């Protein structure tokens, strides 16, 4: 059995967010909201959910450790490393502002930064849940192909399993048959045949299968997503963005 360890204070789960903040993130979604704002709200909700799942009485147990790397032409470490959830909300007062700027989309540099973090952190994660890298982007990379780096990351791991990679692709026209906001809770997850040709297939190939434990926790939140589907979210609307970030906080807890 893999991916069965729970996130606890002595065995926290590490989640590394790679956030594309290139200027195209200013584009709006079907509901008129800017992509970057939808991402910020969804991630803020996920951090709140992590806090909620870590709270006992009025104390926060350090069940989650989080890193946030914003990238465009360069990679910016928004938290100064991997930060326990209690430190994130005490010292950083929650989610930092995203530095949206112009420039290119150096996805390979972001995955390289995640790889370096994992190389440093994994030796201390023996008994912890497998870490998760969450990559959010709204377009094709510039520069080097990130897939070889992502493939290397997917070969890293610990006792609980290989490092998981989730990709959140915010764009229009990704799916042949769109998933409406109303249908998100009935959606079973993405299948390769559902996707138009293009970058979505590249991201699909560097997305881990959804572990049983994650699917169970998502189903407890009334989603219908099934274990084994690729952790690739074609986020064509805000409801799918929310599902995508909810998935990133779905490690089992006691």
């Amino acid at each position, binding site marked *: 059995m893999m991916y069965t360890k729970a996130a606890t204070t002595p065995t926290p789960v590490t989640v590394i967010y790679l956030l594309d903040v290139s200027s195209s993130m200013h584009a709006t979604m079907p509901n008129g909201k800017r992509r970057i704002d939808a991402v910020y709200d969804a991630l803020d909700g996920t951090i709140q959910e992590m806090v*909620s799942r870590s709270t006992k009485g009025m104390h926060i147990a350090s069940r989650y450790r989080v890193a946030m790397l914003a990238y465009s032409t360069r990679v910016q470490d928004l938290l100064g490393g991997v930060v326990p959830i209690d430190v994130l909300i005490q010292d950083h007062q929650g989610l930092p502002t995203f530095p949206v700027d112009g420039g290119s989309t150096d996805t390979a540099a972001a995955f390289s930064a995640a790889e370096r973090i994992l190389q440093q952190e994994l030796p201390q994660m023996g008994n912890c849940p497998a870490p998760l890298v969450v990559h959010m982007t709204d377009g094709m990379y510039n520069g080097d192909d990130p897939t070889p780096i992502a493939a290397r990351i997917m070969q890293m791991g610990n006792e609980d399993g290989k490092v998981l990679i989730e990709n959140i692709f915010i764009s229009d026209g990704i799916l042949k048959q769109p998933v409406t906001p109303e249908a998100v809770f009935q959606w079973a997850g993405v299948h390769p045949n559902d996707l138009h040709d293009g970058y979505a297939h590249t991201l699909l190939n560097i997305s881990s299968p959804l572990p049983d434990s994650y699917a169970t926790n998502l189903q407890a939140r009334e989603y219908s997503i099934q274990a084994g589907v690729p952790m690739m979210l074609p986020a064509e609307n805000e409801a799918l963005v929310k599902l995508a970030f909810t998935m990133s906080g779905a490690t089992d807890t006691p």
Partner: protein
Amino acid sequence: MYPTATPRQGERPAYRTIRLPQDTTVSPKRHRTPVADVLFTYQRSNDSQAHGMVGQDYLTYRYDAQRLVFAICDGVSQSFMGDLAAASLGDALRNWLWARSLLPFDPPLVAHVLGYRLQQWTNLATSMVEQTPIPEHLPRMLRRVLETKRREAGSQTMFVAGVVDRARASILICWVGDSKFQLVTRAACLSADTVFHTHERWSTNRGLIGIDLPHVAVFPLTHDSLLTVYTDGIERYEAQFQRALTATQLADMAHAMRDDPRNDDIALLQLRIPAPIPDP
């Protein structure tokens, strides 16, 4: 000897009440009562001890010469201050079961009457939860999370409560959620078919969640019996609860749980109940 006991003032007490405090670890202790030999313990989780927090389980019992009433509650940590619901409901269940000495041991009837009470108790409990201050010095996001939990979930708990009644030669047990009990005699495990569900709980805001009425069962007390009631913090050892534990064995189990990353608060009550002597 016991953390909290409340005999009546001024005269020989008609009954005695034991309430284990939620802010203290209570090592396994034996206590001989007229109804049963009692073994109990209360252990806070590593997290609770490390941060000076109260545990979210609760254990209380009351006895006289003929009856012993007990309640064990497991506060839900994902709710708002589960320790509040656990303590308030534990006391309410103990008092209610004690006061209803004439209530027939009829499971459907008890389920309906108790179900009504569980809904009524939300009134008092809700105001208690609403009056619990959330300190200003807490981080903004934590305050927001706590306010949301208080508003949407309330304080929640699971429970097992019951009466051992020698005069009726019966044991009545009520429960909601996955706090468990095992009742065994030399001949059989009487509780073998009992089911426990994690999604069931009682909320100070909403009353019962995940079930319409509490589970109620009545068992005969015609043989020497062993009743063990416990929260999920020690269920890893439940296969061993079909025999009488020593305080040392229970202490070893509780100690071993401290090495488990998932360790949780523990409340356990084991009653060795001799069969009542039949009337001539």
